[in-house]
């Protein structure tokens, strides 16, 4: 819908922007902090800010699933892995990767491509927020009516990943000789 100006920004837009800043800032801290466990905790802040963004966009279901899966399970498992191997308290000096310059260039380039595509494609797009548009009911209806095929394909992909992980981690399954 064109014709809706971005200035002056509404309260929601300001909150959204601030949450985005928190997400980007904490994501930067994830890769720059010198403390291993703190990096994982900054990742939690980043995911939390993303969940906040979803909430502002009235996508309640996605927001709480984001908290439940990414904050509650993925990062907890990350922490589990870190603590099982080594989790020094305080700074470690060997956390810098050797190819960090290349990685930074790739990251900046990817971000540049994405931002330019989004700005170019949706510069004047404006979605009106409707309370309840992101409820479980609407989401379920749209997934199982319009997006069944991608959904099923994703499920098969996840299943393949699951079986792959089992095969990799079991030592008693031999490869073909």
């Amino acid at each position, binding site marked *: 819908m064109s014709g809706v100006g971005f200035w002056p920004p509404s309260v929601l837009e300001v909150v959204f922007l601030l949450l985005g800043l928190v997400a980007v800032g904490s994501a930067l801290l994830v890769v720059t902090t010198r403390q291993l*466990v703190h990096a994982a*905790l900054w990742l*939690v802040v980043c995911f939390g800010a993303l969940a906040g963004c979803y909430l502002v966009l009235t996508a*309640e*279901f996605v927001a*709480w*699933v984001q*908290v*439940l899966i990414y*904050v*509650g*399970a993925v990062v*907890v*498992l990350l*922490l*589990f892995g870190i*603590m*099982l191997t080594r*989790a020094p*308290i*305080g700074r470690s000096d060997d956390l810098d990767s050797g190819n960090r310059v290349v990685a930074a260039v790739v990251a900046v380039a990817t971000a540049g491509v994405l931002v330019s595509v989004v700005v170019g494609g949706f510069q004047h797009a404006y979605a009106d927020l409707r309370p*309840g548009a992101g*409820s*479980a*009911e609407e989401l379920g209806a749209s997934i199982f009516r319009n997006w069944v095929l991608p959904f099923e394909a994703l499920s098969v992909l996840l299943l393949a990943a699951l079986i792959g992980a089992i095969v990799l981690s079991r030592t008693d399954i031999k490869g073909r000789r």
Partner: protein
Amino acid sequence: MSLLTTASVLASPAAPGSPGPGLADFGHDPVWISIIKGLVIFVFLLLGVLFGVWLERKLISRMQHRYGPNRAGKFGLLQTVADGLKMGLKEDLMPRKVDKVIFFLAPVIISVPAILAYSVIPMGPVVSMFGHKTPLQLTDMPVAVLFILAMSSIGVYGIVLAGWASKSPYAILGGLRSSAQVVSYEIAMGLSFVAVFLYAGTLSTSEIVAKQADGGTATLFGLDIPLPSWYAILLIPSFLIYVMTMFGEVNRVPFDLPEGEGELVAGYHTEYSSSLKFAMFQLAEYVNVFVVSGVAVTLFLGGWRAPWPISLWDGANVGWLPLLWFFAKIVLIFCFFVWVRASLPRVRYDQLMAFGWKVLIPLNLAWILLVATFRALRVEQSTPVFILMAIVVIGALAVFFRFDTVQQRRREARAEQIEEEFEQLREEPTAGGFPVPPLDLPHYHGANRKEVPSA
């Protein structure tokens, strides 16, 4: 559509038999009523912890043939208050070399989500509060149950971080155990809610309670059979699995491995001396127990609605009275926690994980499949569907027993083999058997041991 009908029912909240508030009744409160409700919930939880600790100690004492706390106040009622005061007055030790910020934050991280989760637990119908009609529940959302799950998954961070930041081997072992345990039991817990969602058709707590007002009927062979209204009876496998997972989720006996005092001193809070930080951990543990009890009441035990014989009376579910039913149900579940703690030993860690992943989750998935099929086929309301279901259930049971007998036979054969080996080894210790010294060798009592005459 369903919101509209609930709203119209709620135009006259005093009408007996109305299923109670729904989503449409929330979001109209003035700020001060929300503040009052929030404060009341907070105070209710804190007092609940104070008397919950007392009740648990008293009850478990009686189960073990002793008196329990009976010095401070009448019946020892003030014992927890005294303990709390003591904790507040003790020196707050901060061990050297710990991660100070996280060591300080961990008790906060564990208790705040626990208290937040109570904001969506419905405690009563619409009442009149200072002239405002308002439901006895702080707030509700279309995905309230998901919110509770999310809060409990954030609470794990308190345990994990307390374990890590303490820089103590016992603490970190406790933290490790709890992270794996809570993540795996959360999956089983979430799955046990799915059957409830399928039946209620909503994730909002107040509407799930409203759906349990009336069980409806099932038509079978031309007969109308009234179904039970509580999901605990209608979906009993889900309820039983939930009851087991809730012990794992709040780290209570028999699943209290993160703090197992037998092997880990006190687990994740070993380094928290008995100061206010330790009190926060204690508080969070009990609040978590209240949260899982509240969820059990809301999702399975009819919420704040009166139990069956009382519910025949029209005035049972009106006004402030349902608070009493809610409270009574919570207390009963809490007593169940204590009872289990007094009766069951702690399981081993591998048993815990095997039980969660290999028993609870597959059982749950099979049950969800069954419920979903039943829901999908019930649209026609016909007898063939029932017969089909019976065939499926009997077939599943037959397959299960077939596997069970085969397994049993294998197990017996294996046990026989082991027994044979033992027999052989016992007879000839030289062939790698058990080197058991004769019991009258002197080293049992020491070579220089002298008999001391008594006279």
